[in-house]
């Protein structure tokens, strides 16, 4: 079912449609949150908080863009406020996560993580949304609350930095 129909049903008071919407976007919102907080537990909590925020304030949702983008915006804002409040993040979680049999794969993932952590927050946000969540530049601008040209500039700078780090400069 497309988003427009789901939203229409939710507006009409169909709680089942809300369940479907959560199920539909849980995975992608979780993936986005995970790459932001780099921790499974915190990512799951942030994802949950994102959906709860969406439900609590559903009446004020104007449906101007895609639902997914709106959820990313909520997740982004919640992450920013979480950082401001300095909520502790379980850094040791990385080590505890799913056992990795392939050492090469683990090293590759670790190197990408390090590259991403080298980027300034604004550039990292744009890179995550562009390359992992497949968002268009105008949607990224909407999620991060920046202008189109600023977003393009950040994306360009981010790509340049990643290339440089990939080469090992």
């Amino acid at each position, binding site marked *: 079912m497309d988003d427009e129909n789901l939203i229409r049903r*939710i507006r009409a008071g169909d*709680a089942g449609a*809300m*369940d479907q919407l*959560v*199920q539909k976007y*849980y*995975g992608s919102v*979780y*993936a986005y949150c*995970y*790459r932001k907080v780099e921790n*499974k537990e915190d*990512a*799951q909590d942030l*994802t*949950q908080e994102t*959906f*709860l925020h*969406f*439900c*609590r*304030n*559903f*009446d004020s949702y104007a449906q101007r863009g895609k639902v997914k983008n709106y959820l990313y915006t909520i997740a982004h804002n919640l992450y920013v406020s979480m950082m401001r409040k300095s909520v502790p993040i379980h850094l040791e979680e990385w080590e505890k*996560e*799913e056992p990795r049999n392939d050492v090469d*794969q683990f090293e*590759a*993932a670790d*190197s*990408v*993580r390090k590259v*991403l952590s080298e980027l300034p927050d604004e550039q990292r946000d744009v*890179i995550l949304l562009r*390359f*992992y969540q497949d968002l268009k530049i105008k949607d990224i601008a909407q999620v991060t609350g920046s202008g189109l040209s600023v977003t393009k500039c950040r994306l360009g700078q981010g*790509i340049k930095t*990643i*290339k440089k780090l*990939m080469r090992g400069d």
Partner: protein
Amino acid sequence: MNQSNREIRDYLQQYPVPSYDPEKMQQTIQLARQAYCNRLLSKRIGFGEFIRMQMHFIGHWVWFTQVALVLGFLILLTKYDFGQTNLQQILLLFSAASPMIAFVGFPELLKSYSHGMEEIESCTRFSMRKLMGARMLILGLMDLFCLTVILAVSTVHSGGFLLRMILYLFVPFNLTCGGCLTVLSHVKSRQSGYYCGAVCALCIAVFVSLSFIRRYYETAATGAWVVMFMLTLVYIAVEVVQTFQSFNRFYSKEEAISVTWQ
């Protein structure tokens, strides 16, 4: 996406995301459903909207009685010729009408208690104090509106002495109102309505009797009326505060909220 960007994408894809716990997703679905259903409860209600909502709970008979009283007063007033007669008839009408206007709203305020609904009402979204405060405000404003209409028409018909008219109209009103509020703050039961009715009847009897004694309504007695007006105003203010506080006191008694299970 160009070749260079595709390379970056392939490189970044080496950083996988661990799968989420299905239980956590189920928990999120449940909580989201709950938050969606509860969102109406957490919605903020403005003061104006709250007052409008409470107006719907006031019985229509209150409005009709108020309007009937004002109309009755106006009809009787127009029958008198004030050019020739003295002030007595108008005072008689004031003495009878203003305590009745004050009394009309009280059975409505006591409705929760007389119907045994106070326990249910105190468990709703708004506290009993807020609900009763809103009802007192609405009924008080309605009373003031009625008194203003009566005052304006009487002043126009009798041709002057607005200050004295205010005093003669508001002193019986304030006294009845204060008396009924005293009853309301001390007795919250089915009988409260009868006590309020008795207070109203007593005030009518006293002021109707007074209206036959001319010297109490002469210009020389205006000072005494001003003092009485001020005193009744203080009395009513004190009683409003006490009644308002009594709504919370009634429900926070230790014995009322803690029950020993045997």
